[in-house]
């Protein structure tokens, strides 16, 4: 029987390639939440759209894998931009409509998530579909034996995230996004068009979600609703580290995938989802609720001790 320590190298390598795929979703979710204040729950369904586009390209149209991945990214980018234009912009008042209930974007994103997922189910059926994984052999990596394809998979995802991070830091559009995240009003004063920046954001994050779906489809069978779990993990990571940025979200996703893998080894039987979600939620509650409260209390106590006591004359005054 292999001990837990014996599994560790495999677990870490697995977390590296699974987490990198989750990170593609976390980056899109986190950036849209920070910049537009929208909870883009439908990004999980875009993952599904990307996966099925790859299936269509490879298994139905006979494309090579690289053109099929590019097709998946283009289609999901366009769907993502269309969702923003047709659904999110009206409910967030960007098109000058009346004020909406602040829950409207959340409800709309749930609606879009269901519509996209159900359309996939109608078009492709509810059963899992798969394409032949690339036959690239097995390699030894960091003390673990791993399919070479999985290393490629992680490498492609990390390269996409790095490219995205470079776009954010080094281009006018990326810097405009940062400005928009800090202050929409300030951004408009200096001539940044919110709609133009949003279009680029939704195109880019849609392409990342499509890439995640396409990479998954090349690895294992996919069903229409499979993007939901990836969206949930990605969103929890993005919420846990709200200001971390693409690289931070990637690291967080790899850590989350490691917890998931440990759950599989230690408990299994479907409880790994519960373990991961409970861990991430507990971290969110500790870092966002308990620690700030403790910090506030300590700082108040510190101030009470540090403040000079008023003299009698000051008190009378």
């Amino acid at each position, binding site marked *: 029987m292999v001990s837990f320590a014996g599994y560790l190298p495999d677990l870490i390598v697995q977390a590296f390639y699974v987490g990198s795929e989750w990170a593609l979703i976390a980056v899109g979710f986190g950036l849209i939440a920070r910049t537009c204040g929208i909870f883009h729950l439908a990004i999980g369904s875009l993952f599904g759209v990307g996966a099925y586009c790859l299936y269509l390209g490879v298994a139905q149209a006979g494309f090579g894998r690289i053109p099929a991945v590019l097709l998946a990214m283009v289609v999901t980018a366009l769907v993502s931009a269309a969702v923003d234009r047709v659904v999110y912009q009206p409910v967030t008042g960007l098109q000058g409509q009346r004020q909406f209930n602040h829950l409207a974007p959340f409800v709309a994103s749930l*609606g879009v*998530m269901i519509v996209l997922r159900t359309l996939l189910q109608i078009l492709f059926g509810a059963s899992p579909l798969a394409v032949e994984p690339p036959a690239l052999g097995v390699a030894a990596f960091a003390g673990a034996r791993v399919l070479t394809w999985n290393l490629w998979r992680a490498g492609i995802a990390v390269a996409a995230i790095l490219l995205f991070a470079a776009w954010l830091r080094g281009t006018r559009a990326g810097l405009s996004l940062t400005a928009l995240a800090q202050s929409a009003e300030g951004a408009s004063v200096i001539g940044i068009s919110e709609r133009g920046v949003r279009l680029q954001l939704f195109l880019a994050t849609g392409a990342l979600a499509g890439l995640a779906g396409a990479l998954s489809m090349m690895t294992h069978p996919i069903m229409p609703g499979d993007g939901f779990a990836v969206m*949930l993990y990605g969103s929890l990571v993005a919420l846990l580290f709200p200001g971390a940025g693409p690289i931070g979200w990637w690291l967080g996703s790899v850590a989350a995938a490691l917890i998931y893998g440990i759950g599989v080894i230690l408990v299994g039987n479907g409880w790994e989802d519960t373990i991961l979600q409970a861990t991430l939620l507990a971290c*969110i509650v500790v870092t966002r609720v308990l620690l700030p409260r403790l910090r506030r209390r300590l700082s108040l106590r510190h101030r009470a001790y540090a403040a000079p006591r008023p003299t009698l004359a000051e008190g009378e005054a």
Partner: protein
Amino acid sequence: MAGYGLTLVTFALIFGALAVSYNISLGFVSLLSISHAAFFAIGAYAYAVLSTQDGATDAAFLQAAGLGILLAALIATGLGLLLIALPEQYVIIGTLALQVTFTTVLTNWTGLTNGIQGIAGVPAPSLFGLTFDTPWSQLGLAAALVVLTLGIAEGVLRSPLGITLRAARDDAAAAAAAGIAVQPLRIAMFALGASLAALAGSVYAGVIGFIDPGSFTVDASIQFLSMVVIGGLGSPVGALLGGVIIALLPSILQEFSLAMNAAATVQQLLFGVAMTLMVVLRPHGLLPERRLLTTGEVGR
């Protein structure tokens, strides 16, 4: 056929009551939790487990309903205390994750829930010496549930508390400045809505006779949300209408000669389209909440 029609109306009323209960937290205090199916499940499983044990008596329904209400209220309060201080996005994703976790627990805790096999042979509920085992009596029970739930929701809304709740919902900062304890109120409404959902769950299990985790998934929670959104956020009667429409939708689709599976898929698609269109085109729902200033209730 008459029996089938009565059963349909019975389920429509149960889901209508469930939508009214959801509206208490979602519409009255604007707390969007995506875990209402979990509270519904707590009531359903409480009754199914207690009533199918050896030695279960006629009092099982009252005991189970009481237990379900208590458990749901406790869980909702605990959840509220943990999550309510967080920004809204965290509440949504937190409750979504908890709903997924709850379904996993229902599936994997086979000793209690019988896992994906579900619990069959749940007896019809008995209350005060009456057994609700005919379509008409079950319809009466569901109608009583609607009257109770709607009465509580309307009672809260029309009382001075209702005005406080609306103030807390529409401008939490101003309400807090005026001395309203916004967060405790939100937690209390969340617990009240959860308790009524558990009660609806106990009635549902007694009427349908079989429950399994598949009825209480995230999709069910989203379906319940769509009932409220379509009916009207903040309007108890609107939520009831939304619940009845959504519950009857599969049967209406089957009238168009759609097979059961296809009807379920089309139903899902219609939920999604309806939710999206409603928030874009008619954000206040089919029967919007009555505004106090236009009805002149303030100051009465």
